[in-house]
């Protein structure tokens, strides 16, 4: 009988939050893959009940310190859907602008500090900086520009205070936005270098066979690369409104994880995030971004998850072009926010967090107090796909020495930039070689 082996990683590094991996396999195949989330639950959906509707963006921001704007955006849109509020086009543009800042800050953190060290064999960006100082310093400067954008519009980088149901508490003047232009333009040039650099990294070759291919799920909007709005579409023909989300997607609670697993009814696992957005919306990327992808020979449909780092860098470049366009066209809104009558209602919305689709639903009573809340973060949606990736790619990498195999598995998880604090109501890596019980 073939000897059973285990790969175990008790505490995944360079991901946001606390997770572990446990894989059991032998020469005949992979028998068990568990991505365990041991991040303790914080019960946001429970303690939101009874809170004021205006608090939803401030409270849900605290689900994640890396993508607070995403939580604020989904919360706002869901509340506005419930209350029938429609922010003006000027307010909508400012929301896209702060979201651009977060995409830049979050993606660049992941590209340079969490993921790139895997490709070049370092344990951190700080260690990588000893041999590649310019690369790391450039990364930090790009990230800084993203943060400057969030700080100007939101008041601070982490947990911004300026977004409000209906709009903002205060909107910037034209000259305030102008002060950012030079920094954004310089960082944009570095972001273009980032695309060329990430595209030159050594990628493990992995593509799923026919029959195992990903179903990519993302928002799609007729006129723009998706961020705040659009229909939920997939590469298998799904095309629904956010209001129909819960009819098509279901969360399962598995024993080994504090994160719920999200599946598509009758179809199972799917992928959200940069690759899904890119594959479903390539033609709506900024023209200069499409041209650069073509110039470096990067295809408009990316199926190798290890290349998600290139897709992220293309999205960073897009976010700079979009931010500069919004600043060029900026006209200050006449009012910082729109308001309306509070009424008992239920509303939902999905927006594109840096890591993928983020769904919120709230019910409020006639005093504006929340009576029910439901939040489905991107990482819970990707969790099952991450496990499937590991199961499918392991046979191909089994010849590697144990330490490199474990590192490859960790890298495969980081392809998804998992955000574990988000998904708890959400991760732990154990690769198992040799007999022994699962821990």
């Amino acid at each position, binding site marked *: 009988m073939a000897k059973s082996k285990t790969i175990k990683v008790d505490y*995944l590094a360079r*991901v946001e939050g606390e997770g572990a991996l446990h894989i059991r396999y032998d020469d005949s195949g992979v028998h068990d893959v568990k991505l365990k989330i041991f991040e303790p639950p914080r019960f946001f959906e429970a303690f939101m009940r009874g809170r004021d509707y205006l608090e939803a963006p401030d409270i849900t921001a605290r689900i994640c310190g890396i993508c*607070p704007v995403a939580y604020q955006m989904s919360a706002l849109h869901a509340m506005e859907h419930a209350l029938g509020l429609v922010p003006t086009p000027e307010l909508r543009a400012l929301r896209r602008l702060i979201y651009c800042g977060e995409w830049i800050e979050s993606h660049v953190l992941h590209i340079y500090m969490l993921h790139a060290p895997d490709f070049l064999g370092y344990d951190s960006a700080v260690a990588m900086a000893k041999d590649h100082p310019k690369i790391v310093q450039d990364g930090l400067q790009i*990230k800084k520009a993203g943060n400057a954008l969030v700080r100007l519009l939101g*008041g601070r*980088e982490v947990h911004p205070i*300026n977004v409000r149901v209906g709009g903002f508490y205060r909107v910037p003047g034209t000259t305030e936005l102008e002060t950012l232009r030079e920094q954004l333009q310089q960082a944009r040039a570095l972001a273009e270098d980032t695309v060329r650099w990430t595209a030159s990294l050594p990628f493990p070759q992995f593509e799923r066979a026919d029959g195992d291919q990903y179903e990519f799920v993302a928002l799609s909007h007729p006129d723009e690369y998706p961020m705040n709005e659009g229909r939920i579409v997939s590469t298998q023909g799904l095309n629904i409104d956010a209001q129909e989300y819960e009819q098509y997607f279901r969360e399962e609670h598995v024993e080994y994880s504090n994160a719920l697993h999200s599946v598509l009814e009758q179809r199972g696992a799917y992928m959200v995030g940069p690759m899904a957005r890119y594959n479903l919306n390539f033609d709506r990327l900024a023209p200069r971004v499409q041209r650069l992808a073509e110039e470096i020979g990067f295809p408009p449909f990316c199926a190798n998850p290890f290349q998600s780092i290139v897709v992220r860098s293309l999205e960073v470049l897009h976010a700079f072009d979009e931010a500069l366009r919004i600043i060029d066209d900026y006209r200050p809104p006449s009012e910082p926010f729109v308001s309306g009558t509070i009424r008992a209602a239920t509303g939902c919305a999905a927006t594109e967090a840096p890591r993928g689709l983020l769904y919120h639903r709230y019910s409020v009573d006639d005093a504006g107090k929340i009576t029910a809340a439901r939040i489905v973060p991107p990482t819970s949606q990707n969790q099952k796909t991450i496990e499937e990736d590991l199961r499918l790619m392991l046979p191909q990498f089994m010849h590697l020495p144990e330490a490199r195999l474990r590192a490859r598995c960790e890298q495969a998880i980081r392809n998804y930039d998992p955000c574990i*604090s988000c998904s708890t109501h959400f991760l732990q890596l154990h690769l198992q070689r040799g007999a022994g019980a699962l821990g």
Partner: protein
Amino acid sequence: MSNTQGKPKLAVWKFASCDGCQLSLLDCEDELLQLADSIDIAYFMEASSRQVEGPYDLSLVEGSITTADDERRIRAVRDQSRALVTIGACATAGGIQALRNFADVEEFTAVVYAHPEYIATLKTSTAISAHVPVDFELQGCPVNKRQLLEVISAFLHRRPPQVPPHSVCIECKLRGNVCVWVAHGTPCLGPVTHAGCGAICPSYNRGCYGCYGPKENPNTASLCHWWREELGADQATLIENLRNFNAAAPPFERESRRQEQRDGEE
């Protein structure tokens, strides 16, 4: 590998939290590489897969204690740390997840999870200081990255950190803001809230919502009186504001419970 000999060792630990406070360290884009030159970042799971064993000269702790395992883990962290500094509202006051302290955690689990029996959690979310001695608490949800650098620098040079304990009102005056309460009648927690954010909410035309927690000796009873009498704030608004990101900070918890009882008497 860089030469780490003789450099002080820094560790960053995470308990129940959003990662925002440790992210503040990575958000020091201009200082991070210089910082990494002068100290050995020996344990920082969010940023590095390198794990150097203790003891550590300085441990920064983010997050609150919400599980029995974490109750044990924080003691092990304390044992390996010459100095231990908590960063943020979770580690310092229990965080937003301490709202469970005012409710029934079993009911909470049932609301979020289909199989509550899979979930191991304590009935309360508590500050690190409830479990082990803490050398300094840096408040804020999230912490201010300038103050974080100051605290690291102070501990490594064995001097007291310069973190003023006064209220947000002082920062507002220093910024030259018009008072949102006096001029616009906007309820504001500034008078009882610890400085450090730079008075950003009033600078963006909204009242402070207390995310930096209580200042030194806050007069919360008087604040509540004026909110009621002058601004017409109702009980729900008062309690919501005292009971958010620092709900279990003792001065805020005492006051929110007093306000609850007060309305029961009326």
